[in-house]
């Protein structure tokens, strides 16, 4: 919402601060200033001059030599502009003064250009005649034509300060208005905040006028869809004189970026700025049968809006019709058929109120957002609309541009009537909420200033809330109003006095922390990927048509195909990220992510899906292989104190994984994750030219299988006994088979074992591999004798032999 200092001063006459000081103060009472700009920030020493004489330049066809009168003598100024003429009044910057650079090179001179004495092609020039863009203003707000700005028709005289004449000694503020303060989408609303902030009196603009004639039949209004149109009001103005608005009105509009058109249009725009109420002006003589009907359109109706576009309507869109057909889209845009032209003689002014939600949906549906629809969709106050239409008439009277009819024809049904609310709140309650000690009198003073008329009855504040403040409903709203002007900064700072029950970390938090530790200690950095992705990734992952991952949740209104579905795995994100690094020529990268995957529980997502916290590690590069990742898996599970045997079972059926190098991770019988090498087809799809390993855990399963209640194991005081077993093993016997033999036959005395060598090759016979284990025997209650260890070893050897394993000598 834009408003200029001049504009605000129409209502807060004594306002005496501007710029930064103003911005800071008004921001602290709740109307934040996004930006502000002094319109004359780059202008200095610019006066109105008259061109007395124009001569040709002896050395340049494009230039002329002007003798200009400054009110303090004459100056010679050379200009290249073709539109100068003798007798023209125009702005000139004197030597030593400054102009804004014109739009095309403004970046080059952000602080303007200082004008010096100089010679143009050998002829002296003492200053510069200015175009409007050299005064820092957009040319299209001043009729569009560039060239030297012609001030001949403007009320001014030679020697006047041109900046003042053109009202450029102004500051333009851009306010951030919060969605609850509909009243502040108007200059009056902001002015009221300004008056309360700076303690200056507020003057409401004149809304009264003297009518010229009577006619209680000028129009007949029928509102068929009252739910969409609480108020439809009109004023009739005849014998209008369409001409340019006075300078003050034009400049007020220009300051906020609105191009002046003619007096009637300018008045409706000005009142829209003042009151935040859009109005519409119809050419009265085009209204057929002098009838207005407000009703929903029929499906398939077509209508040409005043921008010349043909719009297709449906029965949710509200139309304004005359006796024969549509002449406007309520609250959005008028029709071509009833718009006012320069030949318009009589005027029907409309100020209405529409259902905000309907306007928003209709304007979305039509793809047509206008200044009017932007305001109406906030749900405007009918009472304010009536004030606004009367204000427009008062301006018509002031500008003497038409005769106003005394009769006011409108439809404002009783059930739609907005009336002031009276609310009662306790001052104590407000102080309790705020932690303050503000007296009821002080509260009343504050509330009165912002038009919340308050009476005090002991501790009770009785407040009359005007209809435009529909955000004020109860004590908390009143507390905020009091606090805003009492000063948020004046309230103290305390710490809540609250009984807190201490909480320890949940199992889930502990295990997540372990996941972070294991990952970072092992050199993995944390990646973050979006939760939504393209369904194409399931093809990239080589997933079969019936893979569970393809049962995903679809976003109805995604940002695009690439963000359409909620991910059911984290593999795509990690592969995509690894690919980014690989293709930026990084020799190795290790990444992890801890995030949710989303698994639907039902077809229509009537119940919330299963959000499973998942932990994935992925990497490529030197020193990485299946077994390194297996190590990470074991470390994580052991740190998480899982109960049950950890085992790794080959899984050849994960579509995106290498069928020979992938294993499920089990704790007891429960699968808690998997690991392995990514399938070559998939790494190719992701444009990665090397082997990639991943390890993924379903954290919920890990949490389920972990138990932090455990007791310490006694450490034996007696010496241990080590034996090495070196064996020749048929290739098809896996390590876990050997280990189960060791466990089964080693008895209580076998404390631990470790594979320390594995070899396939020349010295080993075809079809066999050589494997060596180190076995540790021990007991908690005595030193082992050689015989005891031998017995255990022999039992193991016999069992190994029975499955075809021989001992190497």
């Amino acid at each position, binding site marked *: 919402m834009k408003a200029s200092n001049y504009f605000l001063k129409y209502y807060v006459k004594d306002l005496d601060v501007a710029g930064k000081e103003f911005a800071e103060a008004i*921001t*602290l*009472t*709740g109307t*934040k200033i996004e930006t502000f700009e002094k319109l004359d920030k780059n202008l200095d020493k610019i006066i109105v001059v008259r061109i007395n004489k124009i001569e040709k330049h002896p050395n340049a066809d494009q230039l002329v030599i002007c003798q200009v009168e400054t009110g303090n003598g004459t100056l010679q100024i050379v200009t290249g502009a073709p539109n100068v003429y003798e007798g023209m009044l125009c702005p000139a910057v004197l030597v030593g003064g400054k102009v804004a650079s014109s739009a095309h090179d403004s970046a080059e001179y952000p602080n303007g250009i200082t004008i010096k004495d100089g010679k143009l092609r050998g002829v002296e020039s003492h200053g510069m005649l200015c175009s409007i863009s050299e005064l820092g203003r957009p040319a299209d707000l001043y009729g569009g034509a560039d060239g030297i700005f012609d001030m001949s028709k403007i009320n001014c005289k030679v020697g006047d300060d041109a900046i003042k004449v053109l009202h450029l000694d102004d500051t333009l503020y851009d306010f951030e208005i*919060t969605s*609850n*303060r509909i009243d502040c989408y108007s200059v009056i609303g902001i002015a009221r905040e300004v008056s309360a902030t700076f303690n200056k009196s507020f003057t409401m603009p004149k809304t009264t006028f003297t009518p010229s004639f009577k006619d209680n039949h000028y129009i007949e209004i029928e509102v068929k869809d009252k739910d969409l149109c609480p108020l439809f009001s009109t004023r009739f103005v005849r014998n209008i004189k369409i001409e340019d608005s006075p300078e003050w009105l034009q400049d007020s509009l220009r300051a906020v970026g609105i191009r002046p058109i003619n007096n009637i249009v300018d008045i409706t725009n000005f009142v829209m700025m003042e009151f935040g109420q859009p109005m519409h002006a119809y050419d009265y003589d085009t209204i057929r049968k002098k009838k207005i009907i407000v009703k929903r359109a029929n499906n398939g109706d077509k209508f040409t809006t005043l921008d010349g576009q043909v719009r297709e309507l449906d029965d949710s869109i509200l139309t304004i019709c005359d006796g024969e057909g549509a002449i406007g889209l309520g609250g959005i845009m008028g029709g071509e058929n009833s718009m006012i032209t320069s030949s318009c003689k009589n005027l029907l002014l409309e100020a209405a109120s529409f259902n905000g939600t309907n306007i*928003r949906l209709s304007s979305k549906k039509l793809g047509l957002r206008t200044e009017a629809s932007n305001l109406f969709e906030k749900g405007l106050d009918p009472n304010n609309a009536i004030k606004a239409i009367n204000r427009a008439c008062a301006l018509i009277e002031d500008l003497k541009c038409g005769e106003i009819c005394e009769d006011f024809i409108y439809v404002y049904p009783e059930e739609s009537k907005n009336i002031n609310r009276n609310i009662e709140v306790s001052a104590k309650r407000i102080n*309790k*909420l*705020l*932690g*303050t000690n503000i007296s009821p009198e002080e509260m009343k003073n504050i509330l009165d200033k912002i038009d919340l008329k308050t009476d005090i009855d002991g501790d009770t504040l009785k407040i009359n809330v005007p209809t435009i403040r529909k955000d004020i*409903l*109860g*004590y*908390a*709203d009143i*507390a*905020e109003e009091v*606090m*805003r002007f009492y000063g*948020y*900064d004046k*309230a*103290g*700072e*305390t*710490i*809540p006095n*609250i009984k*807190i029950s201490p909480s320890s970390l949940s199992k889930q*938090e502990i295990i997540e922390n372990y996941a*972070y530790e294991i990952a*970072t*200690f*092992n*050199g993995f*950095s*944390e990646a*973050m*990927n979006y*939760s*939504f992705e393209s369904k194409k990734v399931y093809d990239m992952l080589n997933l079969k048509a019936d893979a569970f991952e393809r049962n995903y949740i*679809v*976003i*109805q209104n995604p*940002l695009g195909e690439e963000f359409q579905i*909620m991910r059911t795995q984290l593999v795509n994100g990690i592969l995509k*990220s690894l690919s*980014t*690094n690989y293709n*930026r020529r990084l020799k190795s990268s*290790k*990444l992890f992510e801890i995030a*949710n995957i989303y698994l639907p529980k039902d077809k*229509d*997502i009537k119940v919330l899906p299963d*959000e499973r916290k998942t932990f994935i590690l992925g990497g490529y590069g030197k020193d990485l292989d299946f077994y390194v990742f297996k190590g990470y898996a074991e470390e994580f599970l052991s740190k998480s104190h899982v109960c049950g045997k950890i085992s790794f079972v080959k899984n050849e059926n994960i579509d995106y994984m290498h069928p020979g190098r992938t294993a499920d991770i089990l704790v007891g019988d429960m699968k808690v994750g998997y690991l392995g090498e990514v399938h070559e087809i998939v790494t190719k799809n992701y444009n990665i030219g090397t082997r990639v390993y991943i390890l993924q855990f379903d954290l919920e399963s890990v949490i389920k299988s972990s138990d932090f209640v455990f007791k310490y194991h006694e450490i034996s005081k007696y010496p241990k006994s080590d034996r090495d077993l070196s064996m020749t093993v048929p290739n098809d016997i896996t390590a876990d088979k050997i280990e189960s033999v060791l466990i089964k036959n080693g008895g209580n005395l076998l404390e631990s074992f470790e594979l320390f060598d594995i070899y396939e090759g020349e010295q080993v016979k075809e079809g066999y591999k050589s494997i060596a284990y180190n076995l540790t025997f021990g007991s908690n209650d005595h030193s082992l004798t050689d015989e005891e260890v031998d017995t255990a070893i022999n039992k193991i050897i016999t069992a190994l032999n029975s499955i075809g394993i021989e001992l190497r000598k």
Partner: protein
Amino acid sequence: MINIEELKEKAIDSINNAKSLKDLEDIRVNYFGKKGEITSLMQHFKDMATEDRKKFGQIINDAKKSIDDLIKERCDSFNSLVLNEKLKKESIDVSLPAKKIGLGHLHPCTIVFNDVKNIFEKMGYSVVTGPEIEFDEYNFEKLNIEKGHPARDEQDTFYINEKVLLRTQTSPVQARVMEKGKLPICIISAGRVFRSDSVDATHSPTFHQIEGLVVDENISFTDLKGTLTTFAKSFFGEGIKTRFRPHHFPFTEPSAEMDVSCFKCGGKGCRFCKNEGWIEILGCGMVNPRVYELCGLDKDKCQGFAFGMGIERLALLKYEIDDMRLLYENDVRFLNQFD
């Protein structure tokens, strides 16, 4: 007697002249070995009268101790020479490169999240989580954002169906906690949220929020200010100043935005703070009585505050990262800058 003194002098002399550990060992054997000179003196011992024995014993023990101590001392000094020699030989070039340990790094958002969480946990807050795919009812309705409310448009929501959406804020967690009806409430909730913003340098359709909620019977606006100022000082530094500006959120009333004095220029105004001297950090306010009502709490009894902030925004500010896209690109050269 003289005999022993002489023997001692002689022994000391030879110990002092010893050139190696072996010389010392020879000397030791020479005096204390089975046929050593001191040992053989001891042989005479048993033939002596009790009185002489006592006297002689004293003398011989003294001599024995002196010799023994000296041998030990010399041994130590030889040992340390040998050790020093060895250590000297083992000297290395400490300027050679380290063996890379290569610890991984946390994402800047996780770091900032942990920092914020730790501060509030120390103040006694518990961490609560909730679903990312959420019912409209919790994300909007129970937070006083009814159908057709402009805030629903501002937040541009991703919908799964009419009733289910991707949460646009972590506040639905607060609604779920309030619904349980147990006071006092003193929680933070954090996590991923989603808004339909196209990806650019300052927007991301996914980001993270951390929110807090304190509800009891007497929690006031000054408690809100005190709590958040304490937080800001712990997070940004003791010298930081806070400023509370009125604002509007449907679920709080009064509402505020908290700014902190620019930590780059100290509040004088610079490019970093767009010359304002202040940087917007979070939104907050007193929980709107309507929200208590919608969540089934007693609106006349309950009083408390809520606040919320964007993790990414804090991360961008803290590390002066100028493009949000870097956070989701996962280039390890970026990630490995943070610890």
